């Protein structure tokens, strides 16, 4: 009798440990929200302990602390989208003006472009190189080593786009949120197609992307989710709580910040080791 109880107890403990082991597998957990009253956040970038956020509905770019206290408001943009910061300069794609505005302090200038854009939705900058998600032209406008080129055209096959919305240089590659093909596409730095990720994961508008040397994060707008992949394209985790029509995501110091376009907030998730 006694031994039966002991065996059952060991079985129960083992089962419990296995269950906990499984539930611990997803590493990113929701921590808190940064709420806004009037800001509709679309794009986001970290600047020290502060955040820059593009508010496309109100044609503004704001600087906020991590509690949602707005420190600076910069007005009169024409639908600012996915922003990026490089070397103290904020690069702001203006969707309605077909320009990339560079903001340094309060000074503004425009990025000189050889190719005409139609609704730039995202940009990334690395040294002298830049790459722009050219939404209505279904292509990437790319400048590197003094040369200008474009790659991609409208379509569903590998290397083609259906409204690209966000872009990032990482791991000597270019990662692109191919929004309405519901996938991520990876190209080398010559613009040659390398990999397609997320095709089978039921995304409905892949709107924002962030990549580091371990993970790929993508916002799944209509489904209010963030999908997390490893660099090989293996789906690791799906975040689907406390999100409301997310448009952009960034990683900083083991935390991810996700803009909730409809929720007027930023959701913060933390990596539990």
């Amino acid at each position: 009798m006694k031994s039966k109880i002991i065996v059952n107890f060991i079985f129960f403990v083992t089962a419990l440990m296995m269950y906990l082991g499984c539930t611990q597998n997803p590493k990113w957990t929701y921590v808190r929200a940064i709420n806004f009253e009037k800001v509709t956040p679309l794009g986001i970038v970290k600047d020290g302990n502060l955040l820059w956020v593009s508010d496309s509905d109100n044609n503004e770019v704001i600087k906020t602390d991590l509690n949602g206290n707005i420190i600076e408001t910069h007005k009169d943009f024409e639908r600012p989208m996915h922003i990026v910061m490089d070397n103290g300069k904020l690069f702001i794609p203006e969707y309605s003006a077909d320009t990339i505005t560079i903001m340094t302090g309060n000074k503004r200038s425009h990025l000189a472009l050889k190719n005409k854009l139609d609704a730039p939705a995202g940009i990334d900058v690395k040294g002298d190189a830049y790459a722009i998600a050219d939404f209505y032209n279904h292509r990437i406008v790319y400048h590197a080593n003094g040369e200008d080129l474009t790659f991609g055209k409208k379509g569903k096959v590998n290397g083609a786009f259906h409204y690209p919305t966000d872009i990032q240089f990482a791991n000597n590659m270019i990662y692109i949120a191919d929004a309405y093909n519901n996938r991520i596409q990876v190209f080398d730095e010559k613009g040659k197609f390398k990999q397609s990720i997320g095709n089978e994961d039921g995304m409905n508008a892949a709107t924002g992307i962030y990549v580091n040397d371990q993970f790929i994060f993508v916002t799944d707008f209509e489904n209010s989710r963030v999908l997390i992949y490893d660099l090989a394209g293996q789906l690791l985790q799906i975040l689907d709580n406390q999100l409301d029509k997310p448009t952009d995501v960034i990683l900083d110091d083991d935390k991810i910040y996700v803009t909730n376009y409809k929720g007027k907030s930023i959701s913060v998730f933390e990596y539990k080791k």
Partner: protein
Amino acid sequence: MKNIIFVFSFFAIMTLVYTPTFAQKTTYDKVEVQVDGLGCPFCAYGLEKKFKELKGIKKVRIDMETGLMQFNYPSGKMIDVETIENQVDKAGYTPVTTRITRNSGEVVTSERVEEIHEAVVLENVEATSFKVRGNCSMCKARIEKAATSLAGVGTAVWEAETQLIQLEYDPELIDLSDIHKAIAKAGHDTKKANAPDEVYDNLPPCCLYQRN
């Protein structure tokens, strides 16, 4: 001296002739369109952007919170409700009400059209449901409007999660296959009717559902 007076007089007359007070000043009608189903900023700003390309149009603005689209249009062109709503439809959006305030103060609205439609009485109501392909809140507005615009259809509610439309209609006034066809014509495949490719291709980006 005579030459100086001549030159001065010449320029004075030319200035008077070409002064802006003689030029006709453009006046504008103010247009407000309540649009249903706005949800995706990329598409909504796209609509705003495409409208900005229309000749003569000024101050185009979409408020995502309220779904109100506003713009000014040259009074001389006497734009009407039908033209505006066709343009909004063409851009993939679903107009609910339209109001034009002419420069003269006259107000034209789309309400009269709605009253006529509401006057149809359904006597033999049947409920049914079937699958309609779509993605988002803009799809929902378009699908439901395509159905309820038909004489003989009472209510229509479509949900993205189930891909089902729930309908109340009068089979003596309209055949179910005609409802399928009307929804397909608006860009959405149903079990019995497929949207024309050119209509599907012109849907806003977020409405481009995966076709079988």
